[in-house]
């Protein structure tokens, strides 16, 4: 009924997309794992970072990949300040409250983007966009492969940072035992802000890696928010390994769903996985407890 080569190409494409989803989901799961807040503005912040990459290219001519350090640093700063000014103040009490605040934030961000950037779809024409690499029977766009590799390198670097650096250790301590960390002299509020900053920095990196092959509109955030939540829930809220594996599973699901069910109905797989995981195994594949 179908050509196996077709299937292989679908899986490979899904893997490549999943590589970037991993980065988006790692940011979300880090914020959840440490701060215990669900950052509903995640998709909107990604969209904002994508516009930053777009305008760096459009106005100054910086290649999206070359923009990585700038955008990551900028996103970190933005996240850090956002936490200090808004999120951190209300990061207590009922957990729906912070969800509602980040929902409000995403409404503001989406519409500020619409007001200033307009509703048009924006893309970046990189000279290597049309270059394809032949792997087996599949032709894969070169930028997607570069982005895939870069995403894995960044995730590995983040993992190393969390494992080895003092801040990384402090973050893990706070995630495990907030009170205990405070008692041994860790500035917990600062760790929260840094953590939120790192989560948003991941989005900055993802934005740079997405833009060579993707487009951005003010509603781009919507497309990613449920995907990111699904990956995180699938992998287990707060689990790094879960986010990584979840990212690949969702990437492949989306790609194969599109292949077999068509563009429209193909998206249903992600929402269904999300619902089923929440209903049947809310701890996800790797989560300790919900």
């Amino acid at each position: 009924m179908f050509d196996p080569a077709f299937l292989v190409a679908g899986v490979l494409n899904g893997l490549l997309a999943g590589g970037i989803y991993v980065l988006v989901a790692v940011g979300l799961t880090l914020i959840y794992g440490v701060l215990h807040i669900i950052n509903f503005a995640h998709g909107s912040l990604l969209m904002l970072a994508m516009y930053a990459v777009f305008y760096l290219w459009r106005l100054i001519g910086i290649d999206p990949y070359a923009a990585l350090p700038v955008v990551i640093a900028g996103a970190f700063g933005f996240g850090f300040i956002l936490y200090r000014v808004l999120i951190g103040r209300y990061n207590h009490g009922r957990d729906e409250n912070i969800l509602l605040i980040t929902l409000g934030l995403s409404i503001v961000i989406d519409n500020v983007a619409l007001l200033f950037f307009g509703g048009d779809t924006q893309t970046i024409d990189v000279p290597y966009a049309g270059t394809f690499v032949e792997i087996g029977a599949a032709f894969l766009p070169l930028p997607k492969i570069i982005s895939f590799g870069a995403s894995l390198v960044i995730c590995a670097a983040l993992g190393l940072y969390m494992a080895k650096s003092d801040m990384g250790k402090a973050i893990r301590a706070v995630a495990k035992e907030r009170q205990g960390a405070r008692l041994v002299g860790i500035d917990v509020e600062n760790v929260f802000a840094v953590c939120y900053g790192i989560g948003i920095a991941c989005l900055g990196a993802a934005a740079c890696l997405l833009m060579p092959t993707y487009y951005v509109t003010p509603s781009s955030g919507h497309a990613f928010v449920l995907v990111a939540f699904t990956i995180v829930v699938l992998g287990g809220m707060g689990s790094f390994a879960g986010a990584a594996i979840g990212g690949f599973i969702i990437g492949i699901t989306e790609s194969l769903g599109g292949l077999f069910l068509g563009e429209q109905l193909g998206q249903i797989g992600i929402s269904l996985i999300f619902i089923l995981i929440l209903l049947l195994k809310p701890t996800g594949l790797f989560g300790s407890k919900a």
Partner: protein
Amino acid sequence: MSRAVPLCVVGLAAALAWPLLVPNYLVTIGMLAFFTAFIGQSWNIAGGFAGQTSFGHVVFFGTGAYTSTILQVTYGWNPWLAWLVAMAAGGAVGWMIAVLSFRAGLRGSYFALITLAFAEVFRILANSVPFTKGGLGMLIKADPRPENFQFKDPIWIYYLALLLCIVSLLIAWQLTRSRFGARLVAIRENEDAARALGIDVFAEKVKMLTLSGAMCAAGGTFYAQKYLYIDPGIAFGVDKSVEMLLVSMVGGAGTIFGPLIGSFTLMGINEVTRWLASVVPALKNVQPLSLIVYGIMLILIVARLPDGLMSLFRRKPRHA
């Protein structure tokens, strides 16, 4: 409470007289305000009284809109009759989502996210299956006769919206004085304590979401009959979910008049931003402007005024 009675009488008299005194476009704005207050109240029952924040209430709205429209357009039903079926369908979807999610023990943010996902599944289905005509949407043939749920004079659709709003206020009022409502509030305040007191938390929450779903579906049919057109983006899009949540949160979640006050506040903001956009050329995009204000209001309300604008009235001493 006694202070509220004369206020209600005055408010009702003003609402009844309104369309007789103002031009047509203000009648339509009033109609929209009452309609939004009505669907906002359906959210308020879940998110306000019972404390089950939903991010996907539009799933009921769309179920109602599509059920009645399909029955009417494809099967030639009378829309009034189809309205009843639409409410039943909305209730059934509410029942299903409640049984699934509450059986799995989902609370707080998790419940919010799963409702969002359900709405998304319904949107994608409506976009893909043949009997909803997919992304093209469904048109209801214009045939303005009252027995056809279409009115020549906008005054009648206004009064119908007002009636819906009054019914929703009465339901909310009943919730504040019935044992069912008290149990929902107990669940909101502390689910485990409520269970320890012998409340069947699961059953009460299922009943609650069934009621809320049926109400919201009634709003969906009303919307379809007013605009004679629906598509998956309107009927199952995030915007309506947010709108329902917003009016309740802004006005005061878990209060009788919260959604009504919130709805009129947002209508007011809409008109002010429209005026601003007409005088400041740089702000010619009205839609994002008012949504930015909504977003900021939501943040401020949650952060500073968790009981919404209603709490401004309530702070006054009750006894002089």
